[in-house]
């Protein structure tokens, strides 16, 4: 059975890439594309999902060499528990989303051609899978950029909209600069691995064997962290993310947020824990700090957002931050040679990776269903959709509960593990870290609570209350395939939340590959019911019991009260005697986020304007109508992106002076170049 798992993954990739060649042939049969090709993608995802799960469980590394690539540098492939885990994450989500896509994409037919979408979608999936199996620098970067380029075209799907083009552009530029940084990191390591007389230094195996001086290792790490961080959307490189993810069709947004960001996490893990393999303390501190900053800014931005998809995108920044917090802790623990705790932190981070893929995918699919039904993304125009979308609403609610880290759903498990990792920090032999790290835990608690607030708002404003505009009056529920996709994801959220012990036992090979220790063993002593990462005395959590406990109380109370005879009278909403209660009197999304806007507003660039409406004969003090508008912008724009862009243009203006149009000046350049070289170089 040598290489059987990797060939399974390759089969999946092959199917995906082959369909790229086939789809254009059916350009004129749009319905056929949608109804046939997307199920094929789901099937392909199942293959790789299977392989991924087995690869993690097996714990062995399979390698494979394809006879293409650069001279003396054929494409190296490797399937080990780490890549297997991320393949599982990506494939599981891809499976749900591909099912979902069938219904979602069908909505485009008649409006615009879906061929473009059906070409780049599988390329995108294939790119992600290839990133995860590649085992040399060149192949890795090819896959990495394939993924970026394919998603760029997917973001551009509705290319008539100027904002979409802008979003795609910013996205690609950031992604590419990130890729160059990664390339340079490879350059550092390859240089130490085998020098540059041969091509052999470019394989990850060679890099693993290289011994880098600490300064160079740090250089490689910083470059890689910048590169992957740009893709993952760490603050302050995150600005592209809330632009690009919402611009894409929702199924693609789900994949981008749920899966693509995870490849960046994969990159960071692969680099630090596997290839460079001895993280330094300050790397961990850096990652931890960046993670916390991303988490807090991400969640606040999400909370202040009124656009449903942008809200979800910002929340991805937050979750990436949480994942990085775990990884940072892992690095800190490893640098102090505490493998068990490192294993705990890494497991927490990776568990959250898996979870985030599931619930963010689910939420984006839900948002897609809403968009599909109403045609708007602005929550201020929604409301009361729970009555029209009887399936979507509860599924979306599951996503909201999971992402808000509420038991018994999956988000809570990973958050709980992260907190446990935090609470381990007092055993570090460093006093100042002992003092500082708990503050990080407090910040994380703030993030978790704000995130709950954010999703109360997201669900409440979108689905509850009354319709706020015509758009949702005619809304309809998601199609069956869309429901199916969402339902699988929702089930996964629940299962991952209720049976964490099983998942963590499965992840045992992973943490032993990365940290040299596993937390699953200590949990195993007590049994599958109790999650006890370190010891039963230290901390424990039994998700099934929580679920069972709440459910049984609920049931008992419900049944008890039901037997009582008391009628339910449906009446109009109490209007405080005003008689005319309209949907505009509801609390809006802007209103909901007013308290955080006041408290944390200084972190953002906020423009608030109140303008009286047109004069209609009334005195100015009593206008008939008042327009209120508030605009929240990321400070990263003003502090980071704007200045960089302005500087580039200013420099461009200066360079333009070189080209003055006058031939004498050009000749003078040559003349002075000669003189300069003669003077200086000789």
């Amino acid at each position, binding site marked *: 059975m040598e290489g059987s798992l990797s060939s399974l993954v390759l089969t999946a990739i092959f199917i995906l890439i082959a369909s790229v060649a086939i789809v254009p042939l059916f350009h004129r049969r749009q319905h056929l594309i949608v109804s046939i090709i997307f199920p094929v993608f789901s099937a392909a995802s199942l293959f790789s999902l299977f392989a991924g799960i087995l690869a993690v469980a097996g714990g062995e590394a399979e390698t494979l060499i394809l006879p293409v690539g650069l*001279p003396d540098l054929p494409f190296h492939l490797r399937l080990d528990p780490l890549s297997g885990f991320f393949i599982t994450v990506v494939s599981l989500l891809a499976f749900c989303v591909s099912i979902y896509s069938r219904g979602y994409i069908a909505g485009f037919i008649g409006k615009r051609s879906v061929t473009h979408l059906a070409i780049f979608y599988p390329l995108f999936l294939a790119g992600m899978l290839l990133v995860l199996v590649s085992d040399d620098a060149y192949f890795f970067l090819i896959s990495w950029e394939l993924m970026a380029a394919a998603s760029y075209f997917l973001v551009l799907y509705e290319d*008539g909209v100027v904002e979409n*083009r802008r979003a795609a552009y910013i996205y690609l530029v950031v992604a590419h600069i990130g890729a160059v940084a990664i390339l340079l990191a490879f*350059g550092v390591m390859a240089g130490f691995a085998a020098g540059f007389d041969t091509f052999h230094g470019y394989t990850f195996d060679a890099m693993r064997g290289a011994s880098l001086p600490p300064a160079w290792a740090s250089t490689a790490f910083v470059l890689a962290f910048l590169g992957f961080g740009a893709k993952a959307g760490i603050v302050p490189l995150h600005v592209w993310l809330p632009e690009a993810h919402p611009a894409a069709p929702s199924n693609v947004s789900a994949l981008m947020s749920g899966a693509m960001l995870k490849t960046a996490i994969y990159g960071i893990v692969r680099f630090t824990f596997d290839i460079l393999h001895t993280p330094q303390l300050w790397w961990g501190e850096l990652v931890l700090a960046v993670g916390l900053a991303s988490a807090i800014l991400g969640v606040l931005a999400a909370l202040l957002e009124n656009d449903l998809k942008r809200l979800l995108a910002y929340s991805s920044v937050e979750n990436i931050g949480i994942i990085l917090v775990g990884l940072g802790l892992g690095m800190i623990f490893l640098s102090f040679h505490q493998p068990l705790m490192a294993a705990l932190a890494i497991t927490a981070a990776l568990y959250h990776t898996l979870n985030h893929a599931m619930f963010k995918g689910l939420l984006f699919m839900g948002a897609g269903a809403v968009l599909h039904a109403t045609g708007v993304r602005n929550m201020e125009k929604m409301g009361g959709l729970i009555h029209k979308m009887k399936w979507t609403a509860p599924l979306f609610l599951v996503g909201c509960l999971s992402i808000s880290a509420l038991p018994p759903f999956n988000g809570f498990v990973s958050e709980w593990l992260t907190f446990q990792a935090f609470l381990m920090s007092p055993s570090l032999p460093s006093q100042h870290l002992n003092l500082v790290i708990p503050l990080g835990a407090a910040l994380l608690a703030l993030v978790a609570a704000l995130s709950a607030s954010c999703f109360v708002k997201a669900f409440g404003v979108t689905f509850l209350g009354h319709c706020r505009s015509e758009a949702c009056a005619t809304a309809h529920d998601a199609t069956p395939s869309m429901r199916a996709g969402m339902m699988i994801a929702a089930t996964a959220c629940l299962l991952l939340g209720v049976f964490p012990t099983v998942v963590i036992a499965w992840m045992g090979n992973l943490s032993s590959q990365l940290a040299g220790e596993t937390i699953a063993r200590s949990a195993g002593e007590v049994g599958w019911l109790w999650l006890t990462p370190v010891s039963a005395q230290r901390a424990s959590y039994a998700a099934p019991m929580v679920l069972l406990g709440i459910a049984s109380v609920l049931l008992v109370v419900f049944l008890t009260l039901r037997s009582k005879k008391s009628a339910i009278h449906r009446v109009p909403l109490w209007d405080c005697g005003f008689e005319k209660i309209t949907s505009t009197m509801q609390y809006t999304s802007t209103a909901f986020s007013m308290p955080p806007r006041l408290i944390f507003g200084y972190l953002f660039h906020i423009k608030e304007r109140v303008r009286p409406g047109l004069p209609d004969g009334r005195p100015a003090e009593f206008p008939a109508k008042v327009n209120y508008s508030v605009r929240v912008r990321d400070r990263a724009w003003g502090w980071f992106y704007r200045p960089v862009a302005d500087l580039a243009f200013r420099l*461009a203006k200066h360079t333009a002076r*070189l*080209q003055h149009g006058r031939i004498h000046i050009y000749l003078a350049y040559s003349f002075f170049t*000669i003189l300069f070289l003669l003077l200086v170089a000789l």
Partner: protein
Amino acid sequence: MIIVALFTVSLFSAVMLAIIGDRRLAAEINILASFATFVISLFLAVDVYHSGGMTAADNYFFVDAFNVYLVVLTTFVSTTTAVFSRNYMRFERAHGKVGHKGMRFYHAMFQMFIFAMLLALLTNNVGVLWISMELATLSTVLLVSLYRTPSSVEAAWKYFILCGVGIALALFGTILLYFASEKVVGEGTQGLLWTNLILVSDRLEPTILSLAFIFFVVGYGTKVGLVPLHNWLPDAHSEGPTPISAVLSGLLLNIALYALVRCKVLVNKAMGSNWAGEIMMGFGILSLIVASFSLLRQKDVKRMFAYSSIEHMGIATFAFGLGGPIATFGGLLHMLVHSLTKSSIFFTVGHAAQISGTQHIANIKGLIKANPLVGWGMVFGVIAITGMPPFGVFASEFLILTATMKYAPMLIPLFMLGIAVAFAALFRKMQTMVFGDPPEVRQEISAAHVPVFLHMALVLVLGLYFPQFLQRWFLDAVEILK
């Protein structure tokens, strides 16, 4: 013999085309002649592959792994350009942009230009190299002003004067080189042969050679388009007919760089250090930075891609300057893939300009909807040229950048800045041209898609798979350029 045949075909067809003039079959003859040279060059390539480098015609010509691939590349790109120019020039003729005489001149000079380039590549003589470089300028300078518009005349004038002066300086370098070699090799032609020079390179006087190299680098560097000697390049590329822009960018720059690299090897050996290489690195990085910033504010599409050529020539120059097996390999590959990509970009740009009736970027819109193949051609061209995988440009930039990280890490920030700005600039402009809705008024064209997609396919293949023969040539060339 093959080499002589190569020259004869292009020279003969130049004369033929001058006689035939603007007849119906002129374009086809042009294609045929170019294709014939291409086939012959393939034979030459096979020969070289089997027997290694060789000299011919009493040492007047020589082929080795370094120039043979450039010969094949030159003939190949000129063939595809000829195919492209058939459709393109027919359109221009039909719209009255070129006259009767113009077409005659165009075809004849096209072949003449090929002849000059092949001569430059294959000659063993530094002096003849200079002569053929000058010939290449002379044969294209009037093509640039073919349309006789004020701006095209201006562009041609600048091209002529700047390259004329530049190449004159290279002659001074040649004289100095001869001055140095004369003492070692003896008087007469022998003293100017590459094959002899390289043998005695370590005995050549380093002071003179360093002086000579300064003149070479400024002289040939002008033709390569190194900043700050580059100012003719955007003008000439933007104002001439597009097929000429394609060959100028795709081929002529390569030839000039080829000459410069040959000189560098010689000088480095004489000096016993990488002194010449360091000068080239300086020019390379300066070109990269200045060109990429210039890209940001471009309004004219052909001008923009001309700047991109400067940028890529800067990268290649830098790579050769850096030296070492990987970087040199990267430089060789970069010349190859840049040439293929850039010429195909000019093909699509030419058609795009014809569709929109303007070269103004702001007025070119919605190409994908107007003509999908042209639109996607441009998209993939830009993707390839900006160094996105899996296209070949990425492969070369990958090698060059990683090697730089090792040998010149201090230059990395500048390098990265250049690449990033160029990427941002090109994509920004490309998006506005390609996506969105096309304008109401647009010209119908019959585009030549084959050259574009043939080039793109080759570049794609080079990014994913490296043929054995090319690898051997490159490794041999790396050995030669050590």
